[in-house]
């Protein structure tokens, strides 16, 4: 597959008539891990939702995994996984049923459904009694892990994670980091919005800053990237990558 995983040019998206994305420009290459930084209300969540096709881009260009989201926002949904502030879980389904439903909805059939669900449940430590517990009976952190298990089981090409560490204890934060690294190693593209800059810097190739609904800066991440481009060539740490963060305008 060729072309970037995400290519937004002057993307405008509205929520309740308000421009939550006000001409955002963002280019993320396939296989890249990008950390989204920004203050509350800066537009990180809106950016992720737009990339998932949940928030309609009304102006500008928006291509995700080669699909035009302006023309057809539903085109990429099966190939994208979004972990939002809410888990999208059904209280009265058991943990295993929840994951299996997600796999089937994503096109999984036959024995592969149980296989993928099992692997995801094991990866998130949701085995034994937890797998047969109703989602309603779980703690907030366990619910977060189920939502992650859904993502892992669906194995999307593009992972969009919104504050993924929220509600997790230290052990499971580390586990999540491992899952992100494994996804990236497997060729997936990952975009993480987080206020925990130090933690996500260790995962990301690049940090993108969002403010006022636009991308204001893009720089190599401190740790994983450590001033290294994804193609292996050196890049000065903290330098803006030309052609990546193209938009610097703010909401008027």
């Amino acid at each position, binding site marked *: 597959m060729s072309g970037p995983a995400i290519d937004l040019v002057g993307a405008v998206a509205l929520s309740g008539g308000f421009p939550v994305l006000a001409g955002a420009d963002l280019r993320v290459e396939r296989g890249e891990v990008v950390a989204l930084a920004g203050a509350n209300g800066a537009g990180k969540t809106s950016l992720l939702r737009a990339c*998932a*096709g*949940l928030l*309609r881009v009304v102006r500008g260009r928006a291509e995700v995994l080669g699909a035009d989201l302006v023309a057809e*926002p*539903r085109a990429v*949904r*099966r*190939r*994208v*996984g*979004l972990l*939002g*502030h*809410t*888990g*999208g*879980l*059904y*209280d*009265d*389904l058991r943990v295993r*049923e929840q994951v299996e*439903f*997600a796999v*089937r*909805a*994503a*096109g999984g059939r036959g024995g592969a459904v149980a296989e993928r669900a099992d692997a995801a449940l094991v990866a998130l430590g949701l085995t034994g009694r937890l797998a047969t517990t*109703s989602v309603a009976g779980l703690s907030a952190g366990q*619910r977060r892990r189920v939502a992650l298990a*859904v993502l892992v089981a669906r194995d999307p090409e593009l992972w969009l994670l919104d504050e993924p560490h929220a509600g997790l204890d230290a052990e499971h934060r580390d586990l999540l980091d491992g899952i992100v690294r494994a996804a990236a190693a497997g060729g997936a593209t990952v975009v993480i919005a987080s206020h925990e800059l130090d933690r996500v810097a260790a995962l990301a190739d690049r940090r993108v800053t969002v403010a006022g609904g636009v991308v204001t800066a893009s720089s190599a991440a401190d740790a994983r990237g450590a001033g290294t481009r994804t193609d292996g060539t050196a890049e000065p740490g903290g330098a803006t990558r030309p052609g990546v963060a193209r938009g610097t305008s703010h909401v008027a």
Partner: protein
Amino acid sequence: MWRDALLVAGKDLRIEARSRVATNQVAPYALVVLLLFGFAFDADRELLTRAAPGLYWVAVLLCSLLAVQRSFALEAADGARDGLRLAGLDPAGIFLGKAAAVAVVLAGLEVLLGGGIVVLYGTGVHHPLTLVVTALAATAGLAAAGVVYGIMAAGLRVRETLLPLLVLPVVAPVLLAATQAWRSALGLAPGDGGRWLGLLAAFAAIYLTLGVLGFGTLLEDA
């Protein structure tokens, strides 16, 4: 589309079976409604027998509102509607699955209410086939229309109060036609209720078509 419909219907019915909202809350509510009608008519058995078809279908209509509200309350909690959109399911399949699940719940309630009017109102059955076919067509129409208007109201904060306002006027033809067809089936009016059955079938066909074609847009705007 059909595979997605089965998946969604299975999910909704599994949740229903586990939460028992229909059996523990909606069914007792339906029976209470029948009892209250009895009190309102001063337990006049003859009057209740004559009014039974209308009272029955009013009770079914009220239950259908609860069933539809419950169906979309599932999707409102924990951002599940976004999960459903992201799952990549065919919107027509989601519509058919949700309508099928609502129809199954409604059909169970209709059986219970049928027993209720026999016991409480002393109703007898003369044309069982007309009775069953009417119930099936009316249930399909109520479920389809309910899910179409349910998704319209789903994204609004006032959805609980808006849904009855949207649905009840629209399903008035179902109330009228099902009541008239049942009057024939229960031997309270001459004829076989055929033309009323036609109206019910047309209503169901219109809303099933609307749902299959338009649910995707409604889901996106919800």
